[in-house]
C-alpha cells in the first residue's frame, strides 16, 4: 500500500492536480467574452491589469479590505485556515524531502515549529468554520452537504499528518492514511470547488479588470476594496 501510494499514485494525483488546475484556468480564460461580460479586456490592458492586481492583493492581505475588516472573526478563521492550507503542502520539510527523492527537486522549507503551529491552526480553524456554518443563520441557509465534504477533504490530510507527526499509535498506519487522504484531495481539487485555488485568482482578476476598465478605472479613481 505504502509503495503504491508513494509510487504510481503519487505521480497520478500530482499530475491530475497540476494539469487539472491549468486546464481550469485555460477554460476560464477562453470562456471570457468581452461583449457578454461587457468588459473590453483587450482594449485597455494597462488599466485592466492595474485593477486586477489591486483586486487580488487587497484580498490576500489579512484585513486588507472593508469586508475583511467588517468581519474580523471570519477573517481570522479564513487566514488561520489558508496560511496552513497553502504553506504546509508546499514548504514542509518532510514534503520537500519526499519531493526531492521523487522528482529530484525541492522548495524552500519552513521551520518545524512554524509548521506544527500552522497545521494546528488549520485544524482548529476548520472546526470553527464548521461551527460558524451551524451557528449563523445567514451561513446555514447557504450550506449544503457538499460544503462539509469540501472541508472534510481539505482537513483530512492535516489531521492524519499531525497524527503521524506525533506518532499517535501506529506511525506507519497514519502515514499511509495521510498520503491517501492527501492524494484524494489532490485529485479532487480540479473537479470540485477546490478549483478556487486557481479560479480565485481568475475571478478576482476578472472583477478587478471590470472595475479597472469599465467601472471607474478610466476616471482615474481607484476602487477601495
Amino acid at each position, binding site marked *: 500500500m505504502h509503495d503504491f501510494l508513494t509510487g504510481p499514485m503519487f505521480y497520478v494525483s500530482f499530475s491530475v492536480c497540476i494539469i487539472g488546475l491549468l486546464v481550469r484556468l485555460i477554460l476560464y480564460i477562453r470562456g471570457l*467574452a468581452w461583449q457578454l*461580460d461587457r468588459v*473590453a479586456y483587450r482594449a485597455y490592458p494597462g488599466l485592466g491589469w492595474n485593477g486586477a492586481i489591486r483586486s487580488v492583493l487587497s484580498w490576500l492581505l489579512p484585513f486588507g479590505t472593508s469586508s475583511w475588516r467588517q468581519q474580523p472573526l471570519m477573517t481570522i478563521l479564513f487566514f488561520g485556515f489558508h496560511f496552513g492550507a497553502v504553506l504546509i503542502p508546499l514548504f514542509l520539510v518532510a514534503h520537500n524531502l519526499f519531493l526531492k527523492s521523487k522528482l529530484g527537486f525541492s522548495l524552500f522549507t519552513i521551520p518545524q515549529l512554524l509548521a506544527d503551529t500552522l497545521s494546528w491552526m488549520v485544524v482548529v480553524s476548520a472546526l470553527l468554520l464548521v461551527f460558524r456554518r451551524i451557528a449563523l443563520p445567514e451561513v446555514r441557509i*447557504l450550506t449544503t452537504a457538499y460544503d462539509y465534504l469540501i472541508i472534510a477533504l481539505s482537513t483530512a490530510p492535516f489531521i492524519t499528518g499531525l497524527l503521524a507527526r506525533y506518532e499517535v499509535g501506529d506511525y506507519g498506519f497514519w502515514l499511509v492514511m495521510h498520503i491517501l487522504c492527501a492524494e484524494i484531495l489532490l485529485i479532487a481539487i480540479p473537479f470540485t470547488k477546490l478549483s478556487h485555488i486557481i479560479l480565485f485568482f481568475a475571478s478576482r482578476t476578472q472583477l478587478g479588470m471590470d472595475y479597472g476598465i469599465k467601472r471607474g478605472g478610466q476616471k482615474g*479613481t481607484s476602487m477601495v476594496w
Partner: protein
Amino acid sequence: MPEGKLCNKKPVENEEALKALLADTGGQQYYKEMKELDVDSKLLWGTIEKTCKTRMRTWLEICAHCGMCADSCFLYLVNDRDPKQVPAYKIQSTLGKIIKAKGKVDNEFMHMVMETAWAKCTCCNRCGMYCPHGIDMGVMFGYVRGLCYQQGFVPWELKIGAGMHRVYHAQMDVTDEDFVETFKWMVEENEEDYPGLTVPVDKVGADIMYTVNAREVKHYPEDLAEAAILFHIAGENWTVPSSGWEQTSLSMFAGDWGACKMQVEHVYAAMERLKPKRMVGTECGHAHRATVIEGPYWAGRKDGKPPVECIHYVEWVAEALRTGKLKVDPAKRIKQPVTLQDSCNYIRNSGLKEVTREIISHIVEPGYFVEMSPNKEHNFCCGGGGGFNGIGLFRPQRNKALITKRDQIINTGAKLVIAPCHNCWDAIRDLNEEYKVGIKWSFLKPLLISMVEVPEHLKPEE
C-alpha cells in the same frame, strides 16, 4: 393558455400594443395571464448555453457559501436579516437552480425568480465588493432579468417601459417633436430673465451635445430650462439632437437587450450625425450607466466607448466650477447641514466619487457638508434602484427598502440631500413622504442657479 394577450414572450413593438398594456390598469389582466404563461424550457436552456459563460458559471461554482456577502446587501439588513435575502442564496436559488435543472422549471418557479430579480435585488453591485471571490450578484441578476424578460416574466411597468423605447426611442410616450417643442417653450419662458437664452437644436460640431431623461420633458420641464440656463451662463457651445436625445433605458431594468441596443444606437447615431466634441448627460444615474458604461457593449463597440467622449452632468459641473466657467457667489453657498447621495450607477460603477465632492467644496460653506455612512463606492442603494421605484406590484417591498436610506440620512442630521440622480431623487422624495422625515432634496441644477454669478453682459437690462 400558454401565451397571454398582454403577458407573453413577445416584446412590445407598436403603439397599439402599448396602449393595450397601458389600458390594463395596474397590470391586473397582465399578471392574471402571467399565472398561465408557459415556460419555454428549450429556449431558456438554449439561451443559457449560449450566453452564460465561464465568468458566471465559475461564480456559481466556486461560491464558498460563506455568507460574507450577507451584510453587504441593504435588502438583507433592512428585512431583519432574513436569510432568504442573503445575496448568495438569492442567486443560488434562482439562476443556480435553473442551470441545475437545465432550464426545466415551471411557472410558479419563474414567478419566484421574477420577484427575486426585481424585488430582492436592485442590481446595486455592492455585494460584489464584499465577496472574497469577487462574485457580483448584481451582474448576475441583471442577467437573470434578461432570462425572465425573454420568458415573459417581467413586471408590467417594465414591459411597458421597454416597449416605449422600442416605439418612441424614449422611456415614455414623448416624441421627438414633444421634446424639441417643450425645450423651446421652457427656454422662451426664461428668456426675459436671461436675454439671449436659446436651445440650439441639431447644431453640427458643437462642444457639447446634451441628452436628457424623458421624464424631464414630461414631468419636470423646468429641468430643461435650468440646463439651458447653466450652459448659457457658462458660455458653452452646446446643442441638443432633435432625435436621439433620450439617455435613459428602462429596457436595461427590464432585461430587454434588444431594446437596449436599439436605444443606445439611436443616441450614438445622433452623435455621429452632429459630431459634437462631447456628450453631457443629465443628472441621472442609470441613464449614464446605460448610454455610457454598458451601451457600447450592447452596440458591439470593441473599445467599450461611445462614439464621442461622454460625461455625466456632475463631471461637467465640476469642470465648469474648476475652470471658472461657473462662478459661485460665496455668500450664497449652502449654509445648513447638507448631505450627498452617491448613486450606485455612476459612483460605484463609474468612479465619480471625487468629482461630486469637488462640487460640494464649491457650493457648500465649509463645515456644513456631512458624509453619509457608508459613502462613496461603499454607499447603499437609495432603495429604489434597478427599476424598483416604478413597480407597483412590489411597492410594499420597495417602501421597506427605503428605510436603509432614510436612516442613513437621518443619521447625518442634515435636512437637505443633494441627489444628482433621478432614481435616487425619487426614492428620497418617496421616503420623505412615506416616513414623514421632513427633509428637502434637490438636483444640482436648481441649487447652482440659486448661487452662480451671472456675468454682466448676460444680465437683463433694467
